[in-house]
């Protein structure tokens, strides 16, 4: 029974020229967005790979230098694009690309694409995720707004019911039929995405990428399902197709445009974050309480030196087997890094509190549930960005401490000497290991639950409401 109605809806939809035109357009847009996303992904990825390769080579080919010179020469970390970010660029355009890694200080991640764009970018980017999250629901609305209203106005609803079908079954039949129609638009695009993924060797063999793509597709299935159910329910509850359409469009605008902006803005107003200048000043101030690597007059350096003399049972610095300078540097770096980590964590905590409002809004607004879910799976969300920043900082710390250890082992008078060029070739360069799906899932439980809650709630409450809908 449900199948007969589903088939009828599908056939009617496919024979409706308006829908065919609209869905062909949508499909074209999806395919174009996939290809454009892929092309821009490759350009950016190549740009960053080349840059990373360049700085790695530069690092390995340094001449004889003092290790602390090398620590100031430093290196760069370029954020590689996540494998699926060509489907959902998420925050990628608004997060920085390159961070300079050097001794003593933590630099900002610079050169975001948004900084290289005019305010046009604030209209939103045409990615696959954008089409799936905002435009496909619009297609669903146009498809479903007169699901019941039209049948009621035309009188076919009565005919259907006299054949002994319940309203609920008609609703499920319609939902199935419309679902198939939507699938016809979306599946080719996802298939293309899968094929593109397959054509990239580094991802083709990565079960992680496939699992992410699978969950990505699944999330959208749930998202579209709840839109279809919602639209069918609204269509059944409204007396006229016109009011159903206006109501659904209103929901779309509220959920897709107004609420996300309003909650994000409100979050930023409620939990103000400190500026980079203030952060730097605070880190600097707190770091003063520790040892200062570049200040030989520092009292704490003197104490450290005295301890060393005692430990090695010698009476002057010249006789020490280690470089006091190197040890002081190491100590100071450890202290500053700890201080920075604390402040960095506080800042991120502020951001998380700002974003929490948006996540909670997912309970009110399915768009705000699918958006974090989608970018989390694509690897372009805030958690992934922080993960990169953390990895860059970890690498920076390891690198600097390794260089400090090298300096320490040079013994007294290290400032007058240099280490051989071969030393730098032995030091590993920055290689970013993107987090695995299991790690990301921890951050996505909230949005995923919100989405499921919507789907279950709508199918349960909504279809109960359909039972009570008026027929004449």
């Amino acid at each position, binding site marked *: 029974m449900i199948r*007969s109605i589903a088939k*009828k809806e599908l056939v*009617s939809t496919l024979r409706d020229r308006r829908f065919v035109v609209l869905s062909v357009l949508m499909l074209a847009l999806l395919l174009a967005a996939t290809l454009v996303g892929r092309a821009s992904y490759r350009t950016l990825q190549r740009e960053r790979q080349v840059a990373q390769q360049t700085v790695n080579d530069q690092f390995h080919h340094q001449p004889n230098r003092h290790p602390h010179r090398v620590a100031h020469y430093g290196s760069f970390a370029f954020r590689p694009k996540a494998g699926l970010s060509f489907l959902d660029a998420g925050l990628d355009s608004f997060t920085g690309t390159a961070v300079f890694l050097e001794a003593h200080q933590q630099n900002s991640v610079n050169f975001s694409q948004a900084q290289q764009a005019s305010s046009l970018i604030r209209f939103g980017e045409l990615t696959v995720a954008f089409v799936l999250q905002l435009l496909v629901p619009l297609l669903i609305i146009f498809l479903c707004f007169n699901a019941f209203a039209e049948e009621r106005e035309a009188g076919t609803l009565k005919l259907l*019911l006299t*054949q*002994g079908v*319940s309203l609920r079954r008609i609703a499920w039949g319609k939902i199935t039929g419309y679902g198939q129609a939507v699938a016809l638009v979306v599946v080719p695009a996802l298939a293309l995405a899968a094929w593109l993924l397959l054509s990239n060797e580094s991802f083709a063999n990565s079960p992680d990428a496939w699992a992410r793509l699978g969950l990505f597709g699944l999330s959208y299935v749930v998202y579209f399902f709840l839109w279809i159910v919602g639209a069918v329910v609204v269509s059944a509850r409204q007396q006229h197709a016109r009011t159903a359409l206006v109501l659904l469009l209103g929901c779309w605008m509220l959920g897709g445009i107004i609420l996300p902006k309003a909650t994000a803005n409100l979050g930023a107003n409620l939990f103000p974050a400190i500026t980079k200048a203030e952060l730097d000043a605070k880190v600097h101030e707190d770091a003063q309480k520790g040892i200062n690597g570049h200040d030989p007059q520092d009292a704490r350096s003197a104490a450290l030196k005295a301890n060393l003399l005692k430990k090695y049972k010698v009476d002057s610095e010249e006789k020490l087997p280690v470089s006091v300078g190197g040890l002081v540097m190491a100590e100071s770096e450890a202290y500053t890094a700890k201080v920075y980590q604390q402040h960095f964590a506080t800042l991120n905590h502020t951001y998380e509190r700002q974003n929490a409002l948006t996540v909670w809004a997912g309970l009110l607004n399915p768009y705000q549930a699918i958006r974090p879910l989608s970018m989390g799976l694509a690897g372009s969300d805030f958690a992934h960005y922080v993960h990169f920043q953390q990895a860059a900082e970890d690498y920076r710390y390891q690198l600097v401490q390794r260089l400090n250890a090298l300096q320490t082992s040079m013994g007294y008078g290290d400032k007058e000497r240099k280490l051989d060029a071969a030393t730098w070739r032995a030091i590993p360069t920055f290689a970013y290991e993107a987090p695995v799906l299991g790690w990301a899932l921890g951050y996505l439980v909230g949005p995923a639950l919100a989405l499921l809650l919507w789907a279950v709630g709508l199918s349960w409450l909504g279809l109960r409401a359909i039972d009570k809908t008026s027929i*004449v």
Partner: protein
Amino acid sequence: MTYILEAKELRKQYPNKLALRGLNLQIEPGEVFCLLGQNGAGKSTTINLFLGFVQPTAGAAYINGVEVASNPLKIKQYLAYIPENVMLYAHLTGVENLALFSSLAGFRYSEKELLEYLANAGLPAEAVRRRVGTYSKGMRQKVGIAIAVAKHAKVLLLDEPTSGLDPKASNEFSELLRRLSQQGTAVLMATHDLFRAKEVGTRVGIMREGELVDVRPTATLNANELEQLYLTYMQ
């Protein structure tokens, strides 16, 4: 004896109107009962109550002895319904519409059988594979008849079935009702057409302001007498 259609003290109160004030009605198999009356007299409400599309405020409607309001799905297997203006799915062809509705009623007909039903209902052969969007009102009516006949229902509920049909189509429709009633189908038909009521009806009931004010067997009346009777009640 059990009646195939029965209304007991059926009342329907709308928010701003009392549409039906305690209707009592019994119809036997093979009867063609015509409800006459002005717009708003309660004819459509009666039909809708038998269909289970509206819930009675008091009293009950029974089809084949089954109470309608509490068994909305069960009673649907006994009845077929043809509205005033049969609207079908415009994007499907005539035969596709029939196939859809029959399958919903639980019948799986072969292509040949479907075409036969449509032909018997009088749909021209050239039209069956065209989309219903291109049909005239009469052609849609014929598909509606085919849907009703293909259901082999014991009861046929009709709401102004002949309004807007040309005389020829109207006559064919009367023929069909006669054939069905001879096979034992009970028909309840709301109509404005006194002539048609006299011609095909076995009994006529006149409704006024939600009440059945008179019921007469048509055999005892001629067309003029029926019109006189009707006009008397409408004053």
